[in-house]
């Protein structure tokens, strides 16, 4: 394994190359563009034996991926923000037809006003699409989880599309040290895609029938049950990954939560800055820790409940706004997950980091302080937007 200084987007493309993707169909959109540009380059240079389909829209990108995955090819695409929105209806089809498409999303705000910068609005519009969704915090995690995604999605017990989220710019455009796996290691970890229902003249399947009301509910229930079962495979794949590569991943990860009364909750690349803030606050004598969600879907109810069981206060940072709703979308889900518990922390919804707005270590300290103040004194509002100017 060689440690290299490389842009995260490039490292991700290289990882997709190490996984021997067969078909890549993609459309350029900031901040995802470097990923697919580099893949196109790898194909053009003969470094990756794949078909690169430079489609005319994201809708067609994912549609071409459906066709490719249905034909049994290992299939990858990447998008961001508006592109993910344009794919929206196709997203549901990929999961309900059980096509293991792997997609990287360089998370970006949604128009309008037009913003190419990062937040989680695009993710939050895709909560119910039936894709396995993994969040990453640094380049290494992006590379590792891209590799895991193929193994998870293509597993015959799973057969589901997987999304790897990397925050736009804050992750996609950063050059940092990444241990790039060796090809032999990846080959040993990942077997060749063997999609059991591939479009094949020797064994013709009809894929994509319509379902009358008498079977639709059952079809969705079957999908949901299989989706829930995928969690065991995800855990298994992460364990295998640890054996092979030495790095481990969990659905919910914590940082210095031992004995902490007050927990901060984050998802994505801001978690690293938040860790630095936790260090500082701990040094200042505060009883704080950090909980980070890695597995967004299937939602890890048990692991989350366990991670926050001893806390008094939980301050949740969302990078998306549910306009007219109950607060940050992630916070809403956390509230729902913890509601049945007798003993649960007070939960405060803070929204920040919208459309590329930075959150520094000092800002995180502020957020924590303000959150605890709300937890103690209450607030007339369902949530608070951090740092909004009047």
């Amino acid at each position, binding site marked *: 394994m060689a440690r*290299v*200084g490389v842009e995260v987007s490039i490292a991700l493309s290289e990882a997709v190359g190490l996984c021997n993707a067969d078909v890549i169909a993609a459309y350029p959109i900031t*901040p995802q563009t470097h990923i697919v540009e580099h893949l196109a380059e790898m194909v053009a240079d003969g470094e990756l034996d794949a078909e690169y389909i430079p489609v005319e829209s994201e809708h067609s990108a994912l549609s071409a991926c459906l066709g490719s995955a249905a034909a049994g090819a290992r299939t990858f695409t990447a998008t961001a923000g508006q592109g993910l929105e344009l794919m929206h209806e196709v997203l549901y089809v990929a999961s309900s037809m059980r096509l293991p498409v792997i997609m990287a999303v360089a998370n970006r705000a949604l128009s309008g006003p037009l913003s190419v910068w990062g937040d989680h609005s695009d993710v939050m519009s895709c909560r119910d699409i039936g894709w396995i969704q993994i969040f990453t915090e640094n380049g290494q995690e992006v590379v590792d989880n891209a590799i895991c995604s193929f193994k998870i999605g293509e597993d015959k017990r799973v057969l589901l599309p997987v999304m790897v989220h990397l925050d736009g*710019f804050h992750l996609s455009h950063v*050059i*940092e040290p990444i241990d790039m796996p060796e090809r032999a290691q990846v080959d040993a970890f990942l077997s060749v895609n063997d999609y059991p229902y591939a479009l094949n003249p020797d064994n013709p399947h009809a894929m994509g029938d319509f379902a009358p009301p008498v079977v639709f509910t059952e079809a969705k229930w079957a999908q949901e049950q299989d989706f829930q079962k995928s969690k065991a495979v995800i855990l298994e794949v992460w364990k295998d990954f640890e054996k092979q590569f030495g790095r481990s991943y969990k659905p919910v990860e914590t940082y210095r939560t031992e004995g902490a009364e007050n927990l901060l909750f984050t998802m994505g690349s801001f978690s*690293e*800055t938040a860790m*630095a803030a936790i260090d500082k606050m701990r040094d200042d004598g505060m009883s704080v820790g950090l909980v980070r969600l890695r597995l967004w879907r299937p939602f890890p109810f048990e692991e989350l409940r366990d991670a926050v069981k001893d806390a008094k206060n939980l301050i949740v940072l969302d990078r998306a706004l549910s306009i007219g709703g109950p607060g940050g979308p992630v916070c809403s889900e956390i509230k729902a997950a913890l509601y049945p518990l007798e003993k649960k922390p007070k939960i405060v919804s803070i929204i920040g980091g919208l459309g590329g707005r930075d959150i520094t*270590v000092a800002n995180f300290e502020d957020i924590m302080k303000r959150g605890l103040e709300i937890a103690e004194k209450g607030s007339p509002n369902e949530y608070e937007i951090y740092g909004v100017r009047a």
Partner: protein
Amino acid sequence: MKHFIEIRWHGRGGQGAVTSAELIAQAAIGKGKYAQAFPSFGPERRGAPVQSFNRISDDKPIRERSGISEPDIVVVLDPSLVIIGNVISGLKEGGTLIINTTKPLDYFVSEYGDRWKIATVDATAIAKELLGVNIVNTTMLGALIKATGLAGIEDFEEPLKHRFGKLAAKNMAAMKKALEETAVKELKVG
């Protein structure tokens, strides 16, 4: 040198400020350090003032991913930016300011006084002479090495090869020439 430093590069779109940041990060990572490089996340086009950033840590993985507003080092790739751009914004007391300029070092010393270590080099002339183009990204890396000792010139061999291929040698020559020609005004100690 401190164990953890932050650098801000000022250039114009197309001058290679992003490449400079990338190369120093790769040189540092190649030496086993931790480093980040990232551009200003904007839609700037060719010619527009742009920034890029580095974090370099000797011994610990870098956690912060936010922007850099109080750098230890500022490098200015385009002489005209000194006048129009707010290049000294947030530069820490005792930090280092490195400028591509035809003006003598003393001009900036008298301008900025003793707040920062100041280094100057006519990188444009070097780049034009040795590379044939007015792209000073690698040349200014020579000035950065001279002024800060952040890395050795040999640390750039691999990153340059990787980035420039056949043109690596020419860029190395430009870097070396800048290393020789950069004038540095040290801070008074104490």
